[in-house]
């Protein structure tokens, strides 16, 4: 498991990572989600000792990374799939890693097979690789030493949908066998598909963490339904009477409660529903609103992401 405690990294007056604490559990895929420049990569670099922390600490299985002997055998790291010599072949890149870690060269073939890089592709030089192939090679490199912890920065970047599904299966299986996976992404749907647990970071601060369900249910303020009835006015009156916020939304109404409550109110009011569905716009809105909040608080600059949704719930 990875334990991050009060991690802070400042560059002069700029705080890239601000008092970040979280735990990535074994047996789970933990997604580290945030917009570009939120501090994900810096946090991961600190984890593996490439960047010194200003305050706080990171331990992996109880050890600071630097104190783990032959760390490649315990922690698989992929920080940048392009950070390899463009003139080396894929096979040679893995061979160098295997030799450093003291692994037999047969391990290279195993990993190439695992990430579905053919013999022919493995003989090509890295400069002739697509980003997706580089990511596969990077994953292979991270898995070389059969580690129990994986730290992957934007591993799905450049993968096609089939590649993302492949990675999800791979990482899921890895976590099911007890491994710890921490992966970062700036794309919510990637993390949504792969991760069990999510840590949302914006402007260097953690803004929310938990599993998808916890995050979505939140404190109830996010609950929202879209409902259409034969008699919208009657339904609106009933819902307002029950203390829910109601707004017109297209053909129907947006109600500040979950679908169960909206449906029950309609039943009690004897109104026929023609459409009822969850109005939560998903994790994406939550993510954008959370990071937008931190941007408003910390920064007077122009917001790069939309603030709360129009017609959002009170």
């Amino acid at each position, binding site marked *: 498991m990875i334990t991050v405690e009060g991690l802070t990294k400042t560059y002069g007056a700029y705080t890239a990572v601000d008092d970040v604490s*979280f735990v990535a559990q074994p*047996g789970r895929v933990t997604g580290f989600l945030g917009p570009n420049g939120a501090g994900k990569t810096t946090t991961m*670099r600190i984890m593996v000792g490439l960047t010194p922390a200003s305050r706080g600490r990171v331990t992996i299985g109880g050890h600071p990374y630097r104190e*783990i002997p032959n760390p490649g055998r315990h922690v698989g790291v992929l920080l940048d799939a392009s*950070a390899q*010599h463009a003139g080396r072949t894929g096979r040679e890149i893995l061979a160098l890693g295997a030799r450093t870690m003291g692994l037999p060269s047969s391990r290279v073939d195993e990993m190439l097979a695992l990430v579905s890089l053919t013999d022919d592709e493995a003989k090509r030089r890295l400069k002739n690789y697509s980003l997706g192939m580089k990511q596969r090679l990077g994953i292979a490199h991270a898995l070389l030493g059969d580690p129990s912890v994986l730290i992957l920065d934007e591993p799905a970047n450049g993968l096609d949908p089939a590649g993302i599904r492949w990675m999800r299966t791979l990482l899921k299986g890895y976590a099911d066998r007890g491994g710890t996976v921490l992966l970062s992404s700036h794309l919510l749907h990637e993390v949504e598909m792969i991760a069990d647990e999510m840590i949302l970071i914006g402007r260097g601060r*953690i803004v929310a*963490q938990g599993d998808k369900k916890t995050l979505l249910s939140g404190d109830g303020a996010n609950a929202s339904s879209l409902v259409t009835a034969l008699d919208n006015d009657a339904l609106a009156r009933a819902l307002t009477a029950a203390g829910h916020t109601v707004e017109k939304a297209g053909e129907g109404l947006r109600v500040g409660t979950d679908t169960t409550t909206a449906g029950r109110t309609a039943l009690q009011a004897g109104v026929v529903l023609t459409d009822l569905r969850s109005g939560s716009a998903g994790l994406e809105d939550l993510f954008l609103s959370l990071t937008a909040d931190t941007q408003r608080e910390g920064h007077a600059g122009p917001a790069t992401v939309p603030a709360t949704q129009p017609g959002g719930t009170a």
Partner: protein
Amino acid sequence: MSTPTPSAPSTGYAPVRPLDVTGTAPIPFARLVSVELRKMWDTRAGLWLLGSIVVVTAAFMLIFFFVADSSDRVFDNFIAFAATPQGFLLPVLGILLVTQEWGQRTAMVTFALEPSRAKVVSAKVVAALVFGAAAFVAALLLAAVFTAVGGASGGFEGVDAWLFGLFFLLQLLTIIQGLAYGLLLLNSPAAIVTFFVAPIASSIIFNVVPALRDAAPWLDLGTAQQPLFELGGGDSLTGEQWAQLGTTTLVWILIPFALGLVRVLRAELK
């Protein structure tokens, strides 16, 4: 576990499970050296550089073979002729061994696999010296072949092992100098240009500015090393000349190396 947000993750999973690292041995130094050696020849640039060192050494000897009088075709001269191109090319190898990792950003991978950066730099130093020794051995073998095949009679006479040792040492120091500039600048073109231009510029300044002329043997690398090249058989350096070699080595090689090492130890890898 301290989580600052209200929606803390459910923790029904494994408790704090420490990673058992007691069964894992640290990476042996010899293995790091072997990896560094391999990194030098597994790229086209590295392979060409290594190949050209051997080819250029042989070519220089061949040229000497044809232009020199037959009486001059002795082992000593073949070696002396080969020393010049090697003195140019080997330090470049030292520079590339370091700067390549920054240019291609592989240092991120290297230091993630071996977090002790001092150990990695030491392995690079040893690897560069191994290449230097190999190039010297190659020069000895080539010179021996040339001397045996077409050399003057008695071509192996008067070979001064001590002098050879001294030149070999100088060669190795030059490689360290290359490594030092590589570590200090972390950029191939800048390090190579500095390596070649700075000593020349220094020599010009020290010899042109009258006030500096007296200090030249103590501070200018070229001036201090000059007596080495003027040594005849059996000659030796004076104590003062040794001291001057020492101060210039300190200023031009050891101090830049130390500063470069500090830079690499502290560098943030992106």
